[in-house]
């Protein structure tokens, strides 16, 4: 099984997934802001945030994202 960029096959965030979650925790609330903070291309961030949302680690409202309690626990 191939690991996806942000969430691995066991449902846990990969290194780039963790970087995205940390950026959201640090106030980067949009895909563009995450891209600027992490240095990852915007298309990768958009794709990664979609995967993180499917894994229940971020929630999207309009164009902004926030961490779920599950992600908060992971980053604690």
């Amino acid at each position, binding site marked *: 099984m*191939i690991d*996806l*960029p*942000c969430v691995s096959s066991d449902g846990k965030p990969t290194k780039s997934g963790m970087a995205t979650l940390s950026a959201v925790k640090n106030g980067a609330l949009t895909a*563009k802001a995450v891209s600027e903070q992490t240095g990852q*291309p*915007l*298309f*990768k961030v*958009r*794709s*990664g945030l*979609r*995967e993180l949302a499917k894994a229940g680690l971020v929630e999207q409202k309009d164009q902004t994202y926030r961490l779920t309690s599950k992600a908060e626990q992971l980053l604690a």
Partner: protein
Amino acid sequence: MESSEKPEVGLPLIGEKAPDFEAVTTQGTLKLSDFEGSWLVLFSHPADFTPVCTTEFIAFTKIYSELQKRNTELLGLSVDSVSSHIAWVRNVEEKMGVKIPFPIIADLNKEVSNKFGMIHPAQSKTETVRCVFIIDPESKIRTILYYPLTTGRNMDEILRIIDALQTTDKHKVATPANWNVGDPVVVPPPNSTEGAEERIKEGYDCKDWYLCFKKL
């Protein structure tokens, strides 16, 4: 019983919105809309582990930094699996010393290939020909190039087209044959007799009212 669902086969034309898709790639599942806000070179190659394609991937990687300077991303595609793409990319790095930095679509079900008219059955029923779609930040098709299986693409031309399109968008001008950055550009011709008379007095380098150049 045969499925009543027919694959969506088409060719989006210049000026049209590129059809969106969601595809498995070497860098995760990507949608075309993920690239909105940047220019995109979507290109297909016939197959992994083939000679001309390998030279093209090395050449695309060599212009990658130039594309990035132009706010342009690269997205490859072939009718191969992700595992095949990964094995090939690793082989190119190991044998040729080139690390492929851009994602490659694994279009095993030909969903994206069919949407973009990349399969030309008289050439091959199973492989994509060498297509290039240059798509702007609003997901509009701006250029389409097709090459046969035996002819590798010219990277300088792809960069030149992006420069020309971005120059046209920024300055509302056209670019003449063999134009390159720094060369004079073509002023759009007037569309009235009055405009034609005025044009040659407007200080451009005019050969006649309909063919005028200026430096940017």
